[in-house]
């Protein structure tokens, strides 16, 4: 009995880790991907180098003329997601309409929760390519060609799917830099 408990204690972390991987995969597989512009990053982060820091360009419109844009921190705030203008080699920009999450669940065909969307800030990168990728992100931001693909599940929870710099994924940028 004691030995079984000990084995259970050893197996528990492995089950939990496998569950975390499965949950993340399931979320990506069962989500719709939306494209967001990225703004400048904060270069003061001490761990900078292991990830790119960015800020999503989130400019929601009010739900109707009388309504105001909700506050992601203090309000029960969600955004309806609709495809906007086309971005060459990337897809369609996402347009956002602000409203409460209870309204969004009933009225929007797709919606995202505002607070978790605002908190997406890091994209992990290979440390050996950090300087090159930081430069590419900066260039892309200046050209307004830095985009983040965000997978949003049916409950409105977002997860980072991919970063696109000037029409190229991070993997392609790294492969291009390493050469054939």
């Amino acid at each position, binding site marked *: 009995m004691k030995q079984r*408990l*000990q*084995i*259970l*204690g*050893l*197996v*528990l*972390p*492995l089950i*939990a*880790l*496998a569950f*975390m*991987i499965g949950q*993340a995969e399931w979320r*990506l597989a069962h989500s719709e991907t939306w494209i967001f512009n990225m703004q400048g990053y904060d270069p003061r982060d001490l761990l900078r180098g*292991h990830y790119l820091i960015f800020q999503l360009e989130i400019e929601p419109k009010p739900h109707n003329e009388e309504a105001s844009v909700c506050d992601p*921190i203090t309000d029960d705030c969600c955004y309806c997601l609709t495809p906007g203008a086309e971005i060459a080699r990337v897809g369609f920009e996402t347009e956002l309409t602000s409203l409460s999450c209870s309204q969004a669940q009933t009225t929007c065909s797709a919606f995202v929760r505002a607070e*978790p969307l605002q*908190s*997406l*800030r*890091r*994209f*992990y*990168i*290979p*440390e*050996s*390519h950090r300087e090159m990728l930081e430069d590419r992100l900066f260039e892309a931001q200046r050209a307004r060609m830095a985009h983040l693909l965000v997978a949003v599940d049916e409950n409105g929870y977002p*997860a*980072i799917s991919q970063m696109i710099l000037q029409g190229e994924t991070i993997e392609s940028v*790294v492969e291009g830099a*390493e050469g054939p």
Partner: protein
Amino acid sequence: MKIERKLKSWHDAGLIDEAAIGRILEYESENDRPIALYAIAGVGSVAIVLGLVAIIAANWAEISSATKLSLDLCLGIALAVAIARSSVGLAREILLVLYYGFVLASIGLIGQVYHLESEPWRALTAWSLLTLPFMLGVRGSFGSAVWLSGLLVTHAVGFFDLVEWLEASFDFRARADAAVILLAASPLAYLLFSRLDWTTRNRPNFASEFWYAGWAGIAGLSLAGVGSFYGNADVADLPRTGALVGLALWIAFAYALPKIDTSLSDRARLGLRSVLLGGGALSFLALVIPHASWDLAGALSQLILLTVFAWASLQAGYGTVFRICTGAVCIRLFIIYLEVFGSLLETGFGLILGGALAIALSFGWVRRTKALEARLQPPDVASDASASPTEGDRT
């Protein structure tokens, strides 16, 4: 110095005879523990854990995410199997510490691969909870210290994140009250865990290290509490409810001390109670009395507390802690000089005076500490300490 050289010098001084030397050497060889081996193995296992974290942090590009995650899980399975097949001893201890680090590194790897954003306390709490069942199997002092360190980091990060969350949800006063209550209760949890029947019977290293950590927490919080005399505090800012509840918790713990640790001698109990009540009372005053920046009150309160801690550690038979506390009194006195006459240091006179004070304090500490220890030490503590290893050995 090797024990043989020590024994020879004692023999030359006429303190012990040849027969005693023989008995001591025989005892030492029978009870010899490979401390160097333990230390090297401990450092090695920590280095491997740090290496795992560094490799994951580097996020090397050549390996795909799926391969990284698969390799990670395979490594976890290999470690778990190795632990399950190992018997109690140094190898098992190292494997448990490695597995402990592996779980944290794996949580980091998953966060990295899927670009997950979350507060650090979530990852640390998940790590501490998931590893709790197998880390309770650790028996050695090194593994216990690693686990205690991990718990303390989780505790501290969780506490700061909780206060941040309270900031968004409650007003300043309610937030400060909650923070003071949580802070006051935290070291008591470590002390209670250290004196559980299971802990003292089966995990004496946990018991010893958590006991020390708890008392260090009480001492640190008391010093920080009276440190609030250094700032301005208006009536509206004072966490009076929190301070009252915190003091009540410490009084209740002091009252229940004989039941919590039945092995404490009367003097040890008196010493530890004085730490709780002295620290609690002075911190309480600092947190409930509206004050301007009362630097002198802050400095004097900290000096009083350090003196109480030094006296209490002697009562409890903790000689090393006594010397640390008296050393801290000297350092605190020097800091008072810097606080009061700090501007003088820009002059030659101030530098000479400061230097002379520093030398006098260090000489005084070296010369007087042992004499003071002997004078303050009650005659029966030495015999208590030698009779009760649970107390004497804690130093």
